[in-house]
């Protein structure tokens, strides 16, 4: 029973570990499926861009409300949506591709954020916004994260079919008279919401890690959209749990510990996954007869 104690004792003994675990699981449930769609839409780097875009909003919220959850979340949400909206407008009205216009706006946004934090706060504050503290997650923060992942899962369930179709064959979606614009906007909003949920716990820089790494890892285990999303969510939650254990026993900062765990799962999947992994590619079994 020693192993058992070892695996659950920190969460029984300490309230902050329990809250961190619940937060990580709620986060994983929302971020996993969102990450799957980001990967399918070839928007992996856009998730990264958005996570930087959230910073000035969070910083402004921090200036107005101090280290207050609602102020920083709202600020981050607004900043993320503004960047998404502006780059969307530039993409539609000019020949500039979406990745380029996103890069332009997130860089502006990031510089603005660092400027605000470094002129009006201490570097410690900046570190806090950049790296988050999942061990300091309190009940209101938990509620926020849980609400966001609930909204995310419900919205994904309702818009699942057009969302999949918009990734797979946008031309067909247009030809049957459903514009992809609304779906795209809904999806971007969900991305921003989940990043806002993530930056409390993991900071703006690493929030996207819990989206992309499990989703990229899932690619090596499944080949339907729903199973990709399910595995991705599962891996994200597991990363949260293992990462928290690691940070507890090895006395590591929790955020990097969680993301590194997700990274380890990703590396293992690349090497040993069931589909298209390096193992299955180079340890070739005899091909079938037909």
């Amino acid at each position, binding site marked *: 029973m020693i192993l058992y104690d070892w695996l659950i004792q920190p969460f029984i003994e300490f309230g902050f570990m329990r809250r961190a675990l619940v937060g990580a699981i709620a986060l994983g449930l929302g971020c996993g499926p969102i990450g799957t769609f980001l990967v399918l839409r070839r928007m992996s780097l856009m998730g990264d861009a958005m996570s930087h875009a959230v910073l000035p909003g969070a910083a402004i919220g921090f200036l107005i409300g101090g280290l207050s959850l609602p102020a920083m979340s709202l600020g981050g949400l607004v900043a993320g949506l503004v960047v998404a909206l502006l780059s969307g407008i530039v993409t539609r009205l000019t020949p500039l591709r979406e990745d380029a216009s996103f890069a332009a706006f997130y860089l502006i946004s990031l510089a603005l954020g660092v400027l605000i934090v470094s002129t009006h706060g201490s570097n410690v504050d900046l570190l806090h916004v950049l790296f988050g503290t999942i061990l300091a997650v309190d009940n209101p923060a938990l509620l926020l994260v849980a609400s966001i992942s609930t909204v995310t899962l419900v919205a994904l369930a309702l818009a699942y*079919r057009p969302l999949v179709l918009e990734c797979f064959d946008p031309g067909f979606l247009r030809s049957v008279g459903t514009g992809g614009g609304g779906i795209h906007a809904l999806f971007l909003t969900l991305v921003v919401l989940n990043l806002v949920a993530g930056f409390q716990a993991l900071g703006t820089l690493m929030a996207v890690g819990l989206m992309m790494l499990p989703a990229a890892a899932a690619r090596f285990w499944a080949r339907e959209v729903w199973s990709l999303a399910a595995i991705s969510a599962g891996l994200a939650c597991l990363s949260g749990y293992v990462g928290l254990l690691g940070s507890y026993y090895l006395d590591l900062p929790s955020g990097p510990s969680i993301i590194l765990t997700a990274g380890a799962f990703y590396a293992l999947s690349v090497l040993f996954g069931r589909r298209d992994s390096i193992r299955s590619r180079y340890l070739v079994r005899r091909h079938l007869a037909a």
Partner: protein
Amino acid sequence: MSGVPIGAQVTIENLTVAYERHPALHHIGGCFAAGSLTAIVGPNGAGKSTLIKAIAGVLRPSGGRIERGSAGPGHIAYLPQQSEIERSFPISVLDTVLLGHWRRIGWRHGVTPQEAAAATAALAAVGLGHFEDRPISTLSAGQFQRVLFARLILQDAPLILLDEPFTALDARTTHDLLHLVENWHREGRTIIAVLHDFDQVRAHFPQTLLLAREVVAWGPTPEVMSAVSLAAARHMAEAWDEDAHACAVAEAMS
């Protein structure tokens, strides 16, 4: 499929479609009769795909009008030339074909057993029986085009638009898919296809529209495919002039 569909009549009035103000189609007018089977031919840059896209409603005209008759929104089956389809997407052949039911299932309706059976039948009709569970990433280009034709079957539309549907396909696949097109024609649907193979056009398409930014000839295939008009088309297509003046031809009186 549901009863006998009535092909849609497509009427084009004084249509101009421009890219950066340079017209790819310049004051086009004419009519695709209900139930007609028409090939659009012409040199590269003649505006063939542009016309198909304008009829499909994915390109907005700079001037003029297109009347689609019974083919309202969602009732046009359009197969683009280079589809934006993500061929490596994790989706099965059956799910891809089932999308042809979109008008009925939309965002939220389940697929009824009849609809699933129709999809299986459509796959059999394109020669891909028992391919239902295969991921589309494992298909060859020809097999994938067959899947898209199966989806067109399910769309059950009064107007079918095909943009170079047989490019890069082998003879047998082309033959099978042409057979499907002729079936649709017999069912009374209106079909418009952009094609490059003149022998194919002469053999299978009763009507031809020869295009070179403007209508060069439009009517029964044997008359249109005369040497004279083909030469005229070659001449007219090459006309992108950086310093072109604004066109002075009157827009439609509508």
